[in-house]
């Protein structure tokens, strides 16, 4: 029982991280029906921005430094997300290009970012400075670390903020309108391109923060680190129901927990296998996902 509880706590941190990345996939899918496969690499860029800034700061472990590392990672990944939409997708979207063309661009941007990372930082993993000195707490025989606690609480806080933005701001309202009926929102004068830009910015900010979290948790990073968590977050989004923000949160936590339990009770080598097994099962049995609704394709 204790082992089980321990694994649940370990899984929560990964779950929160998957959820943060999955939200970006699902929001972009909502407003432009695109799986933005470059999203995992935005997460990687966030981690590297965090590394560069952490190395520049003199007093790495002060709360201000930690704040600056997260803030700069968020800032640059937001900027990158906006650039990706602007330079990569917008002209195709304006021309109403087939979805496949957009998908090809997504893969191209992903490769571009990964290889730029390899060129700049090399393929060897880099260790991330310990800006939050590790502490462990015991509750009975269960251990958890301050880092796990910080990750889980920040994920919940960020999701709360996201909820406020999406449900209670003018831009959030416009996002939901564009996701439900893009053409109709255009007929009301909603600036759809600004909505797309905002959606990419929001998703990328979360991915950038998730990048630093993983960098602290791992604690090493490399330019291809976005690949697997990116794919898994995408699977989490599909599991929750692509296009649904609560779905992405639930999907992220479910996948994080499932992975941790599989590595604890079966073997850690099955960990990566599990995510893809989940993807296949969801697509076979419940393609709309846990919280998604069945969609009738419009002709």
């Amino acid at each position: 029982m204790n082992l089980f509880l321990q694994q649940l706590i370990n899984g929560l941190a990964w779950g929160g991280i998957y959820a943060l990345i999955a939200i970006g996939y699902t929001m972009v899918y909502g407003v432009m029906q695109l799986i933005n496969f470059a999203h995992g690499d935005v997460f990687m860029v966030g981690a590297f921005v965090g590394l560069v800034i952490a190395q520049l700061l003199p007093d790495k472990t002060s709360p201000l430094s930690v704040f600056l590392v997260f803030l700069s990672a968020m800032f640059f990944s937001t900027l990158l997300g906006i650039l990706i939409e602007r330079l990569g997708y917008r002209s195709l979207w304006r021309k109403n290009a087939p979805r496949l063309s957009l998908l090809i661009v997504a893969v191209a941007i992903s490769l571009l970012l990964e290889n730029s990372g390899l060129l700049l930082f090399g393929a060897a993993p880099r260790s991330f400075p310990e800006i939050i000195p590790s502490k462990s707490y015991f509750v009975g025989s269960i251990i958890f670390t301050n880092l796990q606690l910080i990750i889980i609480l920040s994920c919940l806080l960020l999701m709360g903020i996201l909820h406020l933005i999406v449900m209670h701001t003018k831009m959030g309202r416009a996002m939901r309108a564009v996701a439900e009926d893009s053409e109709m929102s255009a007929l009301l004068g909603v600036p759809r391109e600004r909505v797309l830009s905002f959606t990419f910015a929001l998703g990328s900010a979360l991915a950038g923060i998730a990048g630093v979290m993983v960098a602290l948790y791992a604690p090493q990073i490399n330019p291809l680190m976005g690949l697997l968590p990116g794919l898994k977050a995408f699977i989490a989004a599909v599991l929750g129901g692509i296009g649904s923000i609560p779905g992405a949160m639930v999907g992220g936590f479910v996948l994080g927990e499932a992975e941790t339990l599989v590595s604890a009770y079966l073997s850690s080598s099955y960990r990566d296998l599990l995510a893809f097994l989940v993807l296949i099962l969801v697509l076979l049995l419940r393609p709309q996902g846990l919280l998604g609704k069945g969609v009738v394709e419009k002709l």
Partner: protein
Amino acid sequence: MLRVEEIEVFYDSIQALRNVSFEVKEGEIFALLGANGAGKTTTLKTISGLIIPRRGRIYFQEEDITFLPIQERVKRGISQVPEGRRVFSKLTVEENLLLGGYIRERGIKKNLEAVFSLFPILKERLHQPAGTLSGGEQQMLSIARALMTEPRLLLLDEPSLGLAPLLVRDIFHYIKEINEEGVTILLVEQNAHMALQIANRAALLQRGEVVLQGKAEDLRDMESIKSAYLGG
């Protein structure tokens, strides 16, 4: 107010509109009639900016708007209520209305009040998801949402479609009321009988061409219209 001049629209290689011209005058209700597939909706979409014509020009208050983005047309006062109501079903009634007011910086409260005095039922349903409204209420919401953009010209696409006969009468009554408030109306309808009762002038589209145009009462009396669209 609105002048459509010789527009031609193609879907790939299929021609949907041929040389369509007509003029809507300020303050009137102009009805665009015709059977399914005659090009009525295509004409509206070309005016609201969803479709750019291959040839021809569209003028709104003497300004050439043929290539203007949709949002700019909304700002100038053109608002389309599309066929099938298209309310945002997951959003509340209030959110739907606020989206109609998206481009307006000021006067949203005042516009809301105006809309509620026309459709009091919407005030009662304010915090309900729009998808839970009845068909008639959704049509009212769809029109109310368009009114929130402060239109000078309202484009209505088949507002009576799928509604019970009693509701159809209500909707036409509302259209008349909106018109009396000073909003010019371009009405697309298959229900020619009802449309010709409230319209000042009308045009008849057939296979993408305007085949008749004139005062509504003249069209009402025409034998060809009677037999084809008014059921004898």
